[in-house]
């Protein structure tokens, strides 16, 4: 498990607010017992719908192949808790997501994969979208250490929960080992809860 301090790369932009995890990863692709190959179904229904209207969905745009930073709107990842959504995004090659806000479970799931979700204000998000939309080759950098995003001449502050930032910077975003570090303490906490003993003893 490695520290995530900074992510740099080209950007891919998914516009619109309140994009739910059913849209990111339609439920039919959850019928699997691994996460492998999920990235090929990312936004599948939206992509088909766009193609039907003669448009190219960003995730079908060859100019965006190899992008590492995903730009989104407000409340991205709302709805179902399916980790399949951030798994697919990460497996596609995205290493950081910049948005106006994120649904809580989604951001938590992304963090567990070492995929930072950072927020910027609406004008910054619009400016980033305009810059990277116009120039698919433009590199964008999300620097967690400096809490900053830069693209061309633009430089702005990003926000991320301090706990998430700490976990990413210290490389401790996969929490399991940490949770198991002092299992006796877990036992002691459980022993003090009357329901764990079936309310048999006096707690």
């Amino acid at each position: 498990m490695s520290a995530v301090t900074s992510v740099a790369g080209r950007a891919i932009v998914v516009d619109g607010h309140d994009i739910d995890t059913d849209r990111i990863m339609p439920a039919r692709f959850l019928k699997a017992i691994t996460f492998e190959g999920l990235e090929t179904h990312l936004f599948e229904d939206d992509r088909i719908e766009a193609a039907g209207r003669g448009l190219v969905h960003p995730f079908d745009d060859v100019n965006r192949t190899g992008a590492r930073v995903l730009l989104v709107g407000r409340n991205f990842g709302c709805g179902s808790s399916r980790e399949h959504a951030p798994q697919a995004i990460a497996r596609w090659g995205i290493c950081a997501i910049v948005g106006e806000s994120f649904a809580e479970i989604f951001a938590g799931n992304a963090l567990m994969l070492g995929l930072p979700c950072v927020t910027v204000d609406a004008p910054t998000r619009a400016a980033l979208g305009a810059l990277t939309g116009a120039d698919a080759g433009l590199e964008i950098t999300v620097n967690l250490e400096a809490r900053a995003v830069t693209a061309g001449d633009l430089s702005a502050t990003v926000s991320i929960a301090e706990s998430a930032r700490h976990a990413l910077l210290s490389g401790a975003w996969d929490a399991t080992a940490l949770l198991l570090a002092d299992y006796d303490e877990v036992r002691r906490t459980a022993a003090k809860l009357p329901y764990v003993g079936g309310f048999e003893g006096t707690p």
Partner: protein
Amino acid sequence: MPQTLFRKVWDRHAVRQLPNGQTQLYIGLHLIHEVTSPQAFDELARRGWGVASRERTFATVDHIVPTLSQARPFTDGMAETMTAALERNCRAHGIPLFDLASGVQGIVHVIGPELGLTQPGMTICCGDSHTSTHGAFGAIAFGIGTSQVRDVLASQSLAASVFKVRRIDVTGRLAPGVFAKDVILTIIGRLGIHAGAGYAYEYGGEVLDRMSMDERMTICNMSNEGGARLGYVNPDQTTFDYVRGRRFAPKDDAFDRACAWWRQMASDAGAAYDDQVTIDAATIAPTVTWGINPGQSVAVDGRLPGAREAGAGEHEALAFMGFDAGQAIAGVRIDVAFVGSCTNGRLSDLREAARVVRGRRVASHVRALVVPGSQAVRVAAEREGLHDVFAEAGFEWRGAGCSMCLAMNPDRLHGRELCASSSNRNFKGRQGSPTGRTLLMSPAMVAAAAIAGEVVDVRAWESRS
């Protein structure tokens, strides 16, 4: 100092503070199902870890089970593979599995309470965002992703950040024809679908005080649809009466000791909240969603946003739904009617729907189905003859499961079909067809729509009967 239930439960389950400032939170009950657990078990095996607390872990199969023919092996090979994987993992780790043969299988959020596993004052997790349902009992219950399922399996705990608490009082009395579903859709509609970010919602007030546990579960179930990862109601006598005598509930003297502890866990009078909202029940009408998220709703006698007042998101929703700005929602023709889900698939929901359809016929162009939330709900409903009421009206009477709520099983919409649904999400494609459309409403409203063949006001419907 007076404290909220949230704070009391959180503090008692806090194991330690982690280096990043989060809390290592002990989890009192971990519920698992076939969709979000297989990868977690694989990770455990890969890292050589076992299940820390098998006696606090319970499994069922709900998302992918067919509701028509449940004979094994399932016709759908992948559904069979997922079920077999859950069976294998549960067997390997000694985790109880309430499968189709158990007689108590059902949607995980329906059977937890039914079995008495769900109790006040607990922390409860499940790899499903509707885990907030269990908050109806005064538990701190929230959905997690698969990596966190792995964490809870391995350590019976997870890394979590403390929530703020928003108290939502619903005062007064609900009018006839107005149900718990209308209350929660109204709360989400008024506060917005991301208002709950960072918050636990504490629901209270006279309306919640008077509600049954089924109704409180409907409210807490949809907390996540308002952006709140968890919602709860303080435990009271209604809660204790529900839990008493259930399979995993404390018995005899232990039950009395449990009630005393559960009472202590309830929020104290004068507890401080980070935010407070009051909603007058008199302002709540039967509510129907018209768009592509659960906050886009309108009173059944209301109109959709006008062209000028609608924002970009609302225009997108109108276009997807094929509705005109400013049009009435009543009179919209439906193709499918679905009564079921973890939101509204309990016995009382089926009773309300049956009350509306009794002696009537489903409109000839409507495909209608009733899917009990659990095998126990199905048996109880049949004992009351509800299955006959539905069958005579032209509804299909199905086996228990998640069914058409999320279309991971054969129950789904086709093409542009429009479904009156008692479920919880109206996202694009949610019910299995990328272009399918969903109108969320109460079970009684779904039943009335099935009969009329279009969205109708169940209040007028009831007065006509």
